């Protein structure tokens, strides 16, 4: 179990990236949703021992992450949002290198690890090629392979599905689901479906604050009967936004589909829709924006 208490991080330029964040993350997949700039990566990096927060505490089991980062690193698998590769190094060699860094020093163990992971992420056929020539998706799969080395107890994946095509995304999520039952996995993303598909628990982070926390099903349940949909012309959007609590707008066949949140039927052509996690997310964000 990972517990985060009153975590605050202020960057040198005064940006308050995390503002008193408190979260408890049990075993299994945990979805961390938030828009760009919400503080997700700062939170991930703080947990991954890459930066020391300004204040607050992070504990993993009985381990104080801030005081003893080296102990956490021994059980950590981390896939950063954005990472590069060394030039002139093949996928196999790089994974082998990462395995050594993560403590798989026995040659036979390492061979087994590297081969199994390369098969699992479907990079076996290109293991001898330089990573620098990999496409974004392949690079991402390499990233998850290195995060899984050495049976980590805490896996942090930061925006892992960005840039993956749907097939690759599926394969990736399946892989996570396989390992994710007995360890803590934090999946940070701005893609709601990732969380819908995988996570028994989730939180929404915006403006450096936790806006919402719970099980997706419960959260969706709470919205039941409160989300209404209407198809309008684009020109009418401003009027609707003025009169209703519009939580999302999207285009469908050239017209604008709006969802509004309301305890009662707003009438005026609105029809009820079964709430989805996306509505939970957008309603939380719009509430946060209004509060700000």
């Amino acid at each position, binding site marked *: 179990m990972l517990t985060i208490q009153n975590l605050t991080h202020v960057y*040198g330029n005064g940006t308050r990236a995390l503002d008193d964040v408190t979260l408890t993350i049990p075993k299994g997949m945990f979805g961390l949703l938030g828009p760009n700039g919400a503080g997700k990566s700062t939170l991930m*990096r703080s947990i*991954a*021992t*890459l*930066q*020391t927060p300004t204040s607050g505490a992070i504990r993993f089991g009985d381990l104080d992450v801030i005081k003893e980062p*080296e102990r956490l*690193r*021994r059980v*950590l698998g*981390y*896939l*950063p949002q*954005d*990472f*590069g*590769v*060394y*030039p*002139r*190094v093949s996928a196999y060699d790089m994974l082998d*290198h*990462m395995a*050594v*860094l*993560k*403590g*798989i*020093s*026995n040659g036979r*163990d*390492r061979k*087994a*690890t590297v081969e*199994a*992971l390369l*098969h*699992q992420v*479907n*990079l*076996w*056929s*290109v293991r001898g*090629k330089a990573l620098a*020539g*990999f*496409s974004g998706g*392949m690079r991402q799969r390499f*990233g998850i392979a*290195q995060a*899984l*080395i*050495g*049976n980590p107890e805490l896996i942090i994946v930061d925006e892992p599905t960005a840039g993956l095509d749907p097939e690759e995304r599926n*394969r990736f999520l399946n*892989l996570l689901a*396989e*390992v994710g039952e007995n360890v803590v996995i934090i999946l940070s993303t701005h893609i709601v479906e990732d969380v819908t598909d995988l996570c028994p628990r989730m939180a929404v982070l915006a403006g450096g604050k936790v806006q919402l926390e719970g099980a997706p099903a419960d959260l969706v349940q709470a919205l039941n009967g409160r989300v209404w949909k209407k198809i309008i012309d684009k020109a009418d959007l401003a009027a609707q936004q003025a009169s209703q609590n519009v939580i999302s707008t999207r285009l469908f066949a050239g017209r604008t589909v709006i969802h509004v949140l309301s305890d009662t039927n707003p009438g005026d052509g609105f029809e009820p829709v079964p709430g989805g996690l996306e509505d939970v997310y957008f309603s939380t964000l719009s509430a946060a924006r209004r509060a700000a």
Partner: protein
Amino acid sequence: MFARIASFEFRYQLRQPVFWVVAILFFLITFGSVVIDQISIGSGGNVLKNSPFAIAQTTAILSIFYMFVTAAFVANVIVRDYETGFGPIIQATRIKRFDYLIGRFVGAYGAAALSFAAVPLALFLGSLMPWVDKETFGPNLPAAYAYAYGVIALPNLLLTSAVFFAVATMTRSMSLTYVGVMAFLVAWIAGSAALNLPSLEDFAAWLEPFGIAAYAQSTQYWTAAERNTRVPELAGALLWNRVIWSAVALAIVALAYATFRFAARGAKASRARVEVIAPQDRPAAGPLPSPRFDAATARAQFFARLKMDLGQVFRSPAFLVLVLIGMFNSAGGLWLSPDIYGTSSRLLTRVAIAILNGAFTLFPIIIAIYYAGELVWREREKRTHEIVDSSAVPDWAFLVPRFIAISLVLIATLTASVLTGVAVQTIKGGVPVELGQYLVWYLIPRSVDWILLAALAMFFQVMTPHKFVGWGLMLVYFVAGITLNLIGFEHVLYNYGGVSTEPLSEMNGQGDFWVGAAWMRAYWSAFALILLVLCHALWRRGTETRLWPRLRRLPRRLKGPAGLIMGTATVAFVAIGAFIFVNTTVWNPYVTSREQEVYLADYERTLLAYEETPQPTITDVRFNLDLDPHSPRLRTDGRYQLENRTGRPLTHMHVRWDQFTEMPALTVQDAEVERAFDRFNYRIYRFRTPVPVGGRFALDFRSVIQQRGFRNGANITSLVDNGSFVNNYAFAPLIGMTRQGLLAERTQRRRQKLPAQLRDRDLDDARGHATNYVRADWVNADITVTTVADQTPVAPGYRVSDVTRDGRRTARFVTEAPVLNFFSVQSARYDVMEATHKGVALSIYHHPGHDWNTARMVTALKAGLDYFETNFSDYQFRQVRVLEFPAYGTFAQAFANTIPYSEDIGFVADLRDPDKIDYVTYVTAHELGHQWWAVT
């Protein structure tokens, strides 16, 4: 559109740090050369520091250095679009290829030209500074500045800008552009060296791209007065040189334009983009092996990191190119090895090492500094740092493998230069290849030196927020080192990596010179270890790059082994430092060149007045020298017989001796010290009763020359394990004051408020006729030299005894008729080649193995004797001896029937090619000629 792009580029470049950093740097370099007397470019002698000539020279030389800067300006123009990925956005606009490429080139060139204006500005401002020596400056001539900037600088900057712009547009790589800079520089150096022949002067004036040869040609016969006031007419070779090379520059820009295409280049597309084959069945995710954290893991992690770091350097193209250029440059130097009158020395290993120290050194320095930056910043630049930093690798695994990797890279680089040396030696032949000498005299000391440099470079990289700042600090370190030395801060204890000089010689090997240097290397190694521990403790692990948070966690990271190592290193640093201080400053005098200058000026001010004071004449000398070459120490007991030939009763006598010689006993018969100038080793004795005309008396002395431990800079080279060579000006007192050894350099004299030059006497001045020009009396000599048993002691005179007893060898030399009072004493393990010619015994005392040219020397002596006896007079001695001394000096010198002769000239000259000038015969015959004409 074109003008807008050019001006946008110009303003963009002006906002870049490189513009300001470079402008400031070149301002400081130039300003320093103007206001610090010791530095001068183009001026000196009677040529003023702000003369048109000096301004043009400074401008030309700095414009060559500036190619590194123009490369940065113009390469950035193109490369930045590819590095930032912004290129496609711009290229998708309606911009024309011409406007884009040439407009930006013009803007960048303009920025480079503007920042170079710091050079004339610094020259001008420097000349106005209140503390400069006004005599070295004239009026500031605006035309001279305009000429230097317009005729010299602008075309030169255009040329280098054009060349590197073309390289950058074609390669689209910053590092390959810098490889191009190195290649251009080496080509220029090699070309200039090849054209540096009088017969090629006209050709060089046209062909040398920076106009230096052309400018030199148009001013070569100018007097100092002309150089101070005139600028050469823009005509002839100078005009055509400028026109031709500007046209070449424009042609190169046109070529770059013609070959440039907006489209992503083919090379990039062809870099096989790997794609996945159809998804395969994969084995189920079974349990993976778990990590272990024990000693075996630490070892594996160390070697994995080391291998990765080594691979990143060794497999980078820049490394290979740097080493190849370095090897190429050294091979050229080795092939042409130093020559006298066009005749090279044999490429002895010692000679090869000296050449490598000159021609190759730049490359390991660049590699140390460049790769320190690359290695420290690699993870961050390649954006692998989040993955690597969050893995369970211990903190030490970031610094230690990198430092060892860069050390191994430097050793490999130096080994490449050794291989170059060995290859050229083998091809040229005629010398033994001494791998042991390469190892001990070159590979080991240079490796330590450059590894120390790499440690400092890494430290700067860890401390600073950007790679370029770290590199810039290294530049500051070099400039500061040079400047500190120039202004009198010369102690190794505060010059990082500073070591005393280690002159090499076949006769004496490394001598004891390595001892002090080894202590100094140990001292700075201890300091480097402290720096490395700090690097470790301040390493940017994670995403925090600011220094302050890293400093805050420093104490915590110093706990444990890191702190222990740092503590031990600190203790070693302090202890070795104390030992070095005792050696260099307590046991031996630490005299900076500035202090020495002041000393000589004070010497002159205090004592030159006694120059005309009449002094007695020495008629007989007896020296008993006791040499311990291994200490080294020379004790001399001596006695002079003197006579009053001044023509009137003598009341006083002036006695002085060498600055670094101790004189524990000195007595003049029937006289007492009236006045002693202890600082100058100068005494005035007063006779109790004046010595009558023709009266004779004695002077007895005991002197000691010695060195205890080691010195800060140059150690004593006259007394060494094998090949001591010392003369009586050092070990015996001198009578009376002369001008010998006073400050001679005009700027130094002026700086010390002395007349710029001491005038020689008028030709008709009778006082000048009273002595010979060496101011040595004619004396009978009786010289006994005792040295170690395995060495041969030699002094002028006929050997009358030679006894070896109790491990000491004593030989006595006496003259049969008066000779000039100027005596050499030598002691070494010699082989002797002997011959007789017309009753004169000829002998060549040489180092075993140095017998390539000894027969030629004998032949030269015979021919010389024949010629001189026929044309001058009979030879006055029955012997003539040539004696080799170590390469610490490069001269031959004649004493009575005795000719000390440097290892570095005749003995190792390579005369296998009969077309080469045989200067061995020339020098030998010349020195023999001195037996007739003024022995000096």
